[in-house]
């Protein structure tokens, strides 16, 4: 019965709220503006901060790990951040993880197949077939190459959308050849331009720069060593005799990522790395004695260790959250002040027969309306703010888009703050005996 009454009164409450807004146009506008500005600015900031310090693959990062082993001589040093060919191949061939991929990139001269085509220097990644499913890279045409292509050193390539458009200019290129250096490769797939930010799988590239444009099988790139795909950070720790054929050189140059789908598998893989190091020590390849130098950091831990989440990015995240807090407190304060003034009006309504519950509900409707109006204005302002960011020349600028979850969170927070601000005076108002308040009028 009461509920029915309450719902039936909903339109009336909205009408009451609108009257109250109209009575105080400037102040209502001010409240909505304060909420809107707060939501808009904090969402813009949070979006950028998330781009700059965030998780590049939120759905997968928990399952991705970066194994480290130590082939260097015994003198004290940090655990290497890259692998030698021998270690990477051993771990890759062992297939102990759910998925695993070797990767190494370079700038390579790429041309369309027809004669007279101009070469372009494209970021090329030599990797293995698991790369695409492991990182969830989205394909728009064709698909990845297979494990058989890896083993067979097939001359196949996957292109990014923009490289595909530049090389084929709207023609269908699947199955067609392109040239890398002197060699012809067959295009088997095209991915959406994929730019994880930061560029987690190879941190020796600019961390927030462009993605890779061409992907070829790793063993093929070894077969065609003159392509010169030896990474952006070749680190040799002994005397070397060749800087192109790195298979047997004491050089760290390969990245190796694994996917491990459960904590038990992570544990097992860590043991596998220990055993592997013991084996290599026994063979005399790893020259240090004692406990194996191995590590298996998760993706976010790896990014953190490498300082890709810069110290002041956290400070900035704090700043953005603090700003949101300031805005929410501001809203709460303003709404509180507005409602606390209404004791008299509420008493009149109570005296005329409104129930506590109805008074309560009326206050909440009014608070929610302010919250929603502020939220909508905030949405508009955040859209404008992010549009502004996209006009700046920063590396991450074109990634600055409104995030649905983030918007929802902020919006819910702002309405919740309005509710809290509405609740307290409503509660207070409906617990004062009408007669006492009326006497003071």
């Amino acid at each position, binding site marked *: 019965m009461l509920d029915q009454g309450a719902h039936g009164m909903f339109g009336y409450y909205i009408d009451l709220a609108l009257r109250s807004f109209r009575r105080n146009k400037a102040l209502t506008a001010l409240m909505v503006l304060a909420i809107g500005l707060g939501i808009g600015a904090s969402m813009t900031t949070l979006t950028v901060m998330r781009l700059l310090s965030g998780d590049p693959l939120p759905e997968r990062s928990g399952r991705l790990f970066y194994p480290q082993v130590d082939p260097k001589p015994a003198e004290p040093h940090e655990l290497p951040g890259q692998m030698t060919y021998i270690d990477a191949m051993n771990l890759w061939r062992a297939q102990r993880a759910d998925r695993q991929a070797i990767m190494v990139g370079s700038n390579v001269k790429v041309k369309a197949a027809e004669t007279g085509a101009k070469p372009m220097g494209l970021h090329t990644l030599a990797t293995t077939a698991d790369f695409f499913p492991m990182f969830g890279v989205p394909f728009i045409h064709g698909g990845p190459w297979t494990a058989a292509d890896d083993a067979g050193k097939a001359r196949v390539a996957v292109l990014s959308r923009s490289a595909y458009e530049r090389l084929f200019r709207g023609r269908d290129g699947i199955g067609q050849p392109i040239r890398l250096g002197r060699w012809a490769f067959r295009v088997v797939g095209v991915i959406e331009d994929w730019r994880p930010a930061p560029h987690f799988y190879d941190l020796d590239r600019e961390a927030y720069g462009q993605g890779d444009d061409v992907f070829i099988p790793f063993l093929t790139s070894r077969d065609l060593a003159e392509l010169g795909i030896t990474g952006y950070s070749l680190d040799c720790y002994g005397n070397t005799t060749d*800087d192109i054929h790195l298979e047997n050189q004491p050089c760290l140059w390969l990245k190796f990522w694994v996917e491990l789908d459960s904590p038990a598998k992570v544990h097992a893989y860590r043991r596998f790395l220990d055993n592997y190091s013991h084996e290599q020590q026994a063979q005399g390849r790893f020259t240090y004695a004692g406990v194996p130098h191995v590590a298996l950091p998760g993706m976010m831990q790896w990014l953190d260790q490498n300082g890709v989440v810069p110290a002041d990015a956290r400070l900035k995240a*704090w700043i953005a959250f603090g*700003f949101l807090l300031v805005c929410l407190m501001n809203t709460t304060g303003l709404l509180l002040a507005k409602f606390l003034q209404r004791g008299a009006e509420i008493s009149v309504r109570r005296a005329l027969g409104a129930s506590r519950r109805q008074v309560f509900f009326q206050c909440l409707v009014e608070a929610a309306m302010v919250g929603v109006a502020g939220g909508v204005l905030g949405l508009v302002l955040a859209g404008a703010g992010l549009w502004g960011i996209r006009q700046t020349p920063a590396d991450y600028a074109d990634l600055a888009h409104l995030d649905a979850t983030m918007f929802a969170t902020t919006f819910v927070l702002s309405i919740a703050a309005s509710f809290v601000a509405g609740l307290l005076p409503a509660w207070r108002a409906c617990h004062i005996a009408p007669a006492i308040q009326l006497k003071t009028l």
Partner: protein
Amino acid sequence: MQLRHVLAALPRHKLICLLVVVEIAVAFAILCNAIFVIRERVGQMQIDTGIAENRLIYVHNDGVGEESHAPLVERNLLALRGLAGVESAVAMFPLPLENTSINFRPWLTPDMKLRGPAVGMFVGTPGYLDTLGLRIVQGRDFNDAEYDGMDQTLKTLSPAVIVTRDLADKLWPGQNPIGKKFWRSPSRGYTVVGVVERLVRGYLRKDFVPEYSAMFPVKPVSFVSALYVMRVAPSDRDRLVRESSELLLKLNPDMLIDAKGSYADMRADYFRQDTSLVWLLALVCLAMLLVTALGIAGLANFWVQQRRRSIGIRRAIGATRGDILHYFQTENFLIVSFGIALGMALAFALNLLLMQHYELPRLPLYYLPVGALALWVLGQLAVLGPALRAAAVPPVVATRSA
């Protein structure tokens, strides 16, 4: 007198006062820390690279070359020097803040026991120190015979090296660095022949000292075929960027030029991310101050409305307009002051926390009074409108019912 009235009235709006105090405290903490970050960034962006920045232009090609192309570098350099206005031209790697860099850690003894800090490697063809405008402060420049090849791991064959003063002071504190040696592998030792004042490496990293750079001499080899650097008069820069890239394309039809411009542009490009972050933070601070001011103005307005009658009574029993005005200004000053006091504690706690976990420097103490002043001024400006309105309330209101 006034203060007592204000203090007596404050507890009547406990909750709202508390909210405003906390809001101002958080705003203050954020303001101090944000300005701190901005100043750190701006300081970094003003770093002196040590080279003649406004006289340099560059052409960068994609650099995928074979050793057989090396003689072409010599030919290209000769042609570039022939352009009217080009004072000198060299091929080198890298330019300071080019966003690429090769780093090595020198061994200070041939038995590879003692190792120095990470050093940025520079290599270039004859005359590159001059072209960059580097000043030798001790020892000498490379002589012609010292410009030699490189091995497969990008170590120069010539044993001569020139270091920056900061690096010399770090490796051999208090000693004459000329004639001192370091090793990059057991078979590759280098002897210091000269010291330059300053040269900043290819990119900046928190764990690298920017000024630790070492310069090596090379003759034109494929490794340095990617970056041509020319010294020109500042007014000729745009013209010569265009003319030099056209010339290189004419000489090398297959060359893919992926970047060219003045050094000033390259430097601005290196910092563009920082620039946009600084702007973003500055705008956030502004927005926050605006929101805070709107909040204070809004609340003051409510309070003035609420107290119209008591203001009228005070006016009726002798308070002047000025008294009323001052009343609201004092009230605002008190609330903001409480906020600032709490904010100082908060700002310091935040800074301490960040220092502990992320090795951020300590917030300089002078930020606190400056931030406090900013918020006091902001508070007074925000309350001025409502306070004036309050002062305008006529005494006759006292005789009317609310």
